[in-house]
């Protein structure tokens, strides 16, 4: 009985800490400056205003930014899932010389902070003449070491009898990968896709550096630039943050079931 109530006190405090900042942020996007300064102890607005959202809506080329973001995060995620699962298939299911080396190389790339390679990558893209292009924006991010790991783990938990049966039926690697392994890997695909989509969507520096052209700006980058022009207006800052968070929140609530399943079944045990 005691442990049970202790448990709920613990979860309750944690829940409060997790949720209150989010409520405060959403409420803050509807508050006037005077309200924010005048009623600091209050979680909810005393007087409501929509000027934060109105400002964002009127002054940003919203659809263009949204389109760019969906294109960047969406296409890159799709490619990542494809490339990562292919690479993982080789690492988990095939035996060939260099496999271990390849695996360690992938491991090493996971340890490289993004800022470290930013300038050299920029120079590379310049030499390829890929700055301000969609391939420059997308290709360098189209694989992730973490995704390769996750897929590899997942594939290793799939019974090998399935491949063998398919091979006896005369299937080649491509067919086994595409028809046998991938259909079984839906939870892993959901996990890798959600994590990558989130990361790419939230990425600010990369789109800013690769594209000097404003028509290629992504939604979070556009909102960050916009917010930078209204640093003394908190409602605008909060509204911008919430708008860029919304699409991710939708994806999250749609995909979270698969995501949890992906984590639990991908052999992290």
């Amino acid at each position, binding site marked *: 009985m005691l442990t049970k109530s202790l448990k709920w006190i613990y979860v309750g405090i944690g829940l409060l800490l997790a949720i209150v900042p989010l409520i405060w942020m959403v409420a803050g996007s509807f508050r006037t*400056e*005077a309200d*924010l*300064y005048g009623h600091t102890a209050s979680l909810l607005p005393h007087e409501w205003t929509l000027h934060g959202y109105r400002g964002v809506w009127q002054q940003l080329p919203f659809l263009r930014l949204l389109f760019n973001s969906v294109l960047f995060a969406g296409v890159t995620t799709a*490619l990542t899932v*494809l*490339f990562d699962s292919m690479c993982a298939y080789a690492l988990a299911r095939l035996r060939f010389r260099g496999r271990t080396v390849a695996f360690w190389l992938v491991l090493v790339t996971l340890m490289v902070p993004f800022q470290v390679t930013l*300038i050299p990558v*920029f*120079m590379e893209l*310049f030499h390829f*003449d*890929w*700055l*301000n*292009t*969609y*391939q*420059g924006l*997308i*290709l360098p991010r189209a694989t992730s070491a973490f995704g390769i790991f996750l897929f590899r783990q997942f594939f290793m938990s799939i019974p090998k009898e399935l491949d063998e049966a398919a091979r006896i039926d005369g299937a*080649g*690697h*491509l*067919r086994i990968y595409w028809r046998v392994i991938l259909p079984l890997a839906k939870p892993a695909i959901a996990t890798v896709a959600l994590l990558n989509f989130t990361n790419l969507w939230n990425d600010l*520096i990369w789109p*800013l*550096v690769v594209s*000097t052209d*404003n028509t290629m700006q992504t939604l979070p980058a556009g909102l960050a*630039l916009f917010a*930078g*022009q209204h*640093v*003394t207006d*908190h409602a605008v800052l909060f509204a911008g943050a919430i708008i860029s968070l919304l699409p991710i929140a939708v994806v999250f609530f749609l995909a979270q079931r698969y995501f949890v399943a992906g984590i639990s079944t991908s052999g992290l045990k």
Partner: protein
Amino acid sequence: MRNKRALAALASVALTGLLVSGCGNSDDSSGSGPVSLTVWTGFTGGDAPGYDEIVSDFNAAHPDIKVTMTKMSWDTIQQKLPSAWVTGQGPDIAAPSSDPNAIAQYVKTNSVLEITNTGTGDDKVNTDQLAAELVKEFTYNGKLYAVPANYATLSLYYNKKLVSKPPTTVAELQDQAAKLTTGGNYGLVLADNNTIQMWPILQWLSGGDIVDANNCSVVSTPAGIASLQPWVDLVKNKKISPVGLSGAEADSLFSAGKAAMEINGPWAAPSYQKAGVDFGLAAVPAGADGKPVTLGSTAPLAISAKTKHPQQAQEFLAYWTSKTAQLKFSKTTGFPPLRTDLGDDADLKADPTVSIFASQVSNARLYLPQVPNATKVDTDAYVPLIQTATRDGDVAGAAATAAKKINELTGCTQ
């Protein structure tokens, strides 16, 4: 075998598909039609409409040139511009930063074009009509690499609800700052990082300085320490301002009516008006020696060394600094005019905002002009000096550390 080929095809389709679909660098200069010039600036404050006007007026008067100005945060420009210009990407013209000695870095990497289109007449940059110290700030080895995009002075903003009569001497300023700090309000908000410099003005007012004519530190001289001590005491003991404020945080406190006074530039006025603060403007009070002093601040406007249209770009700078454009700009923004030949303009003298800022031009000093590594002197020595002293109150100790660092950075040998 079949699979191998299929795989190779799959991989190469995935890769080349993107190559084909991507759009290349578009540069419409090769075709007929007007020449396009792009400009990057960080003018996102209340003064933004003034710059927009210059651009639209220029475009209207020059059908053969089309200028597009993009505004972004100074941070973003700092991240993108150096490598963009080196690689011939990026804008034709930019205001890289309003930091002291900001152009030096670009001169070093041969990224900026020398401005040769100078002289008299409307189609040239009239350097002799610009403040001499600004021209000097942007001149390296006898060559001019930028023109000032603006020249602002700082004035004292005061909240009329809290301040009945603005201070006119430094003693009054200190006195009021302490008295007005009550009931959750701050007497004088002082930002010390990511801001237009406020602390150097306080030091100048109280008879101190940062470096001397040989770029050697003077912060730890007796005069230097004595000039900081009273202000540090006010912050630490009287809490006239929170410590560690950024410029935006200080502005936001003033906007919300939580600060009685703030020293700031003309760009702040429109957003304070919008926020509904009933504020007044006064010249920065006279210093301890009875002489007035304030900070002058400028942002350089420079041309990429790799621009395809050097001629047109210089023409644009000439227009930007012309008498017509500057008169209109001052009226719109409240900034003092860049040009000395507008100093006596009757219209500007009658404008309450412009006149306050313009009246202080002759007393204004630049922060760390042409000091080697000026940005680092600021971030690595001066900001830590203020932040340490306002927290622990030991001005002498903090100043000694800062002095050592400053001399290292400026290359001063004593």
